[in-house]
């Protein structure tokens, strides 16, 4: 337990002034603008939107600037801001099959209709620091190439739907009669449905999911994954305003989707088939989408009649520890004054120590 203490107002005020000065950095350097962060640190902005669970590039960029690049602090700021806004409603489910795809790869099918589109990827770069970027100069690279004539503009069907004539891959059915759980409105109860799990994972800490996903690959709940399809691009957001009664597009957002295909031996209820894990994340974040898909599949263990004996398969463990705002709140609260708690522990310890010495003679001095 921590207790309120008085005093220190001047120190706190000065600490915040010092923070503001440090945030600004060297005043001889130009101040970084929110538009620059949004445009040039775009993937940092994507992460803050995803884990802050609020899609707004400008606000996420502002949060990064204010937090001095501390991502979890920025995510915290965005989460706090969203509590000040009213909710006008719910979108129609996003249609990733109608995405304007900017990247799409499959590790399972080489010749898929529409092809493998690498898009703006770090893959196949040599991971050598590019010293030309040190010089603030215009990039020496050529502008992006364009391929005329053949356009990939038409919607690309999802690989898992397309190449499943034999029904060897599990199919997903809509089940729209079921309510959609919302963990921002009601607290988690277990077992949580897949809807709540996916909502939790979509806003979960990328590092936590990456570690858990990795653990499944290393044998802690292995489910033999293949990246059936990863796609990134823009999807329209459709909304039905009450006064109109029909859906309109109100804009578009960037998302990354991962369809993981996993070996499954079958159970008493289900024949042997490939099962699926799903990842869907705001912005361009393949690492997060892939990790999410691995963990989603691992969390389906009990549904599929598998032994759930590893951390990634343990729903309570995963869902209760995945949120970095909650986690940082509880870890960091340890630095708040615990003076009274500690004093009482000291008193208890002194008494125990005295009892111990009475019973067994004086404690020897520490070794020299």
């Amino acid at each position, binding site marked *: 337990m921590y207790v309120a203490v008085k005093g220190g107002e001047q120190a706190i005020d000065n600490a915040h002034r010092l923070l503001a000065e440090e945030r600004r950095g060297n005043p001889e350097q130009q101040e970084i603008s929110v538009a620059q962060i949004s445009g040039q640190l775009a993937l940092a902005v994507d992460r803050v939107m995803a884990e802050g669970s*609020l899609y707004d590039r400008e606000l996420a960029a502002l949060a990064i600037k204010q937090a001095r690049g501390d991502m979890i602090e920025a995510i915290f700021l965005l989460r706090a801001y969203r509590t000040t806004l009213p909710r006008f409603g719910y979108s129609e489910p996003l249609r990733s099959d109608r995405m304007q795809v900017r990247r799409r790869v499959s590790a399972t099918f080489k010749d898929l209709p529409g092809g493998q589109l690498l898009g703006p990827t770090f893959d196949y770069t040599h991971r050598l620091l590019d010293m030309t970027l040190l010089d603030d100069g215009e990039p020496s690279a050529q502008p992006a190439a*364009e391929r005329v004539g053949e356009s990939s*503009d038409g919607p690309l069907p999802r690989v898992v739907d397309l190449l499943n004539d034999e029904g060897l891959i599990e199919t997903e059915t809509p089940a729209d009669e079921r309510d959609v759980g919302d963990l921002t409105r009601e607290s988690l109860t277990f077992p949580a449905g897949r809807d709540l799990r996916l909502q939790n994972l979509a806003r979960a800490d990328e590092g936590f999911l990456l570690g858990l996903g990795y653990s499944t690959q290393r044998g802690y709940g292995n489910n033999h994954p293949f990246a059936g399809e990863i796609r990134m691009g823009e999807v*329209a957001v459709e*909304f039905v305003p009450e006064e109109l009664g029909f859906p309109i597009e109100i*804009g578009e957002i960037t998302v990354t989707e991962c369809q993981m295909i996993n070996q499954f031996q079958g159970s008493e209820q289900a024949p042997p088939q490939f099962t699926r894990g799903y990842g869907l994340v*705001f912005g361009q974040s393949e690492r997060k989408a892939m990790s999410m898909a691995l963990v989603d599949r691992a969390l389906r263990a009990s549904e599929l009649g598998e032994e759930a004996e590893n951390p990634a398969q343990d729903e309570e463990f995963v869902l209760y520890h995945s949120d970095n705002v909650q986690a940082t709140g509880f870890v960091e609260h340890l630095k708040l004054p615990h003076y009274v708690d500690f004093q009482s522990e000291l008193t208890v310890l002194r008494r125990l120590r005295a009892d111990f010495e009475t019973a067994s003679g004086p404690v020897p001095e520490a070794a020299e």
Partner: protein
Amino acid sequence: MRRQEWLSILAQASPKAVADAVRTVTPQPSYKLLRAPESGMIMLRGRAGGSGRRFNLGEATLTRCSVKVDGGSIGHGYVLGRSPQHAEQIALLDALLQDPSHHQDLWDAVIAPLAKARAAEKDSKARKTAATKVDFFTMVRGESE
């Protein structure tokens, strides 16, 4: 449905393009706000596996506005982001587009060019993406003789 189409096109256009379009309307219409521009959020939904059970993915900011043109129709504006002016101007154009005396002019002068600009932008993006398409060829292994 054309209303659905123009509302979508206006929401997907840049705020500046919509503001420029409003400026071309003569005479400038007078209207009152039924619901002043207001920013809030919309919960975005996905489906498990893309086609399965619905789930809440996360929220997005959204601005809405409703206007009534004097002696004319009611218009509604909805747009992602925090953009009060954009939402108000969509609502105004929505009201005017329902008015047969404005409709065709506005469609030709505003909606059609915005739709064309958006198509061009999507096309350019698609061509850049298409240039990154992998052309596989089969490596011939040398032991087959």
